[in-house]
């Protein structure tokens, strides 16, 4: 606690601005007014992306209408990986700088990220059956995403498993940092090993192997999923901060009364 106060006093020190914004009360003041807008935009973009992909995007030359599953499967996969990267990032801040907001974020990212990973796995299985001929195969891509799901579940359990919350936050942060090794494995699995899963369609360095009328709904849906993820995490963090404040006030009132 004491170190935070000192650091905020000297804004020129590295990381001081982070201490400034990592204050839960300040986070609540900044984020709460934006939540209704963020929620509205997330819903609109996600709905547009999903409907565009489901009903209006053209069918694929090879996979026919089954390629429509892409518009939910791929964004869910991207969000689940980015979500884990965020989880690892806040865990890093939690371990090194002990930001209380980082622990709050870690606690709320877990369930949302796990949900998106679950959506990715289920929609992938439902895509695999009609196209490959199997719901599930143990290739490097599918296995590493399943590992990601279990990392999320382990983190959710670990962060709530201790009587002393600080111990839970520490243990869960270590798990999140160790598990980050899985992210490059997921990304490069289709290049490093022979997999049944297809290679990358979208490329950030060259041109993407997807026709433009299918790329647009994919991008819209992706932006929608990302916004939804961020909005959900922020709303849950705000709720957690308010719950904590309520608890503190109740405890203080009880102490005054006694």
């Amino acid at each position, binding site marked *: 606690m004491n170190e935070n106060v*000192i650091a905020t006093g000297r804004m020129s020190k590295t990381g001081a601005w982070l201490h400034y914004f990592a204050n839960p009360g300040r986070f609540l003041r900044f984020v709460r007014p934006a939540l209704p807008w963020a929620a509205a935009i997330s819903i609109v973009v996600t709905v547009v992306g999903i409907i565009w992909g489901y009903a209006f995007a053209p069918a694929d*030359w*090879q996979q026919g209408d089954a390629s429509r599953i892409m518009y939910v499967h791929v964004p869910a996969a991207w969000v689940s990986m980015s979500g884990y990267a965020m989880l690892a990032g806040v865990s890093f801040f939690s371990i*090194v700088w002990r930001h209380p907001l980082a622990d709050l974020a870690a606690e709320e990212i877990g369930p949302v990220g796990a949900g998106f990973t679950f959506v990715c796995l289920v929609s992938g299985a439902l895509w695999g059956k009609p196209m490959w001929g*199997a719901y599930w195969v143990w290739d490097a891509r599918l296995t590493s995403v399943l590992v990601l799901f279990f990392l999320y579940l382990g983190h959710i359990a670990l962060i709530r498993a201790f009587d002393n919350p600080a111990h839970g936050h520490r243990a869960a942060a270590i798990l999140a940092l160790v598990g980050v090794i899985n992210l490059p494995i997921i990304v490069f699995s289709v290049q490093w090993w022979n997999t049944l899963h297809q290679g990358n369609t979208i490329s950030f360095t060259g041109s993407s192997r997807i*026709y433009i009328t*299918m790329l647009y709904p994919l991008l819209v849906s992706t932006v929608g999923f990302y916004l939804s993820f961020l909005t959900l995490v922020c709303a849950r963090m705000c709720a957690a901060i308010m719950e904590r404040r309520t608890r503190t006030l109740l405890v203080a009132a009880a102490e005054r009364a006694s």
Partner: protein
Amino acid sequence: MRGAKKRRLYLVLAIGLCLSAAVGLSLAAFSSTLTFFFSPREVVAKHPAPGMSFRLGGIVQVGTVQTVVNAGTPVTNFRLTDGQASIPVVYSGLLPDLFREGQGIVAIGAMNASGQFVASEVLAKHGSSYMPKDVEQSLKNAGKWNPAYGPPPPASEWNTMQVKGSAS
């Protein structure tokens, strides 16, 4: 106080480095067992014992697919190739919808005594190119691509291509 923070930072970074080195090395060591399938070239080089089950992946060689219906079950003979070697495969049963000449597939089964791969299951491995049917047709008509002979041309040639009568 700042010293403690710096120590934690370096500790985390050092542990991360050690861990990634360990995982990287073990992945490199185990990469052969992580492989989901063997290519025809590897099978020709390694000569797996007949009856030993493994997965064989490759491209269905053009002009080699023959299907005979035997007592109600279709029996399909074809060759799987990776461009350098090719292995004859036999499979009895219904093939996945995406099975066609030039398609990448993964077959699960074992070699028999006469050097033929007897597949008990055939999985289709679809490519990573997505385009509407009419774009594929116009690439085909322009002589730029035949799906039976490999992947489409570089994506920049077609992913924003104008197509006459395109539905969308």
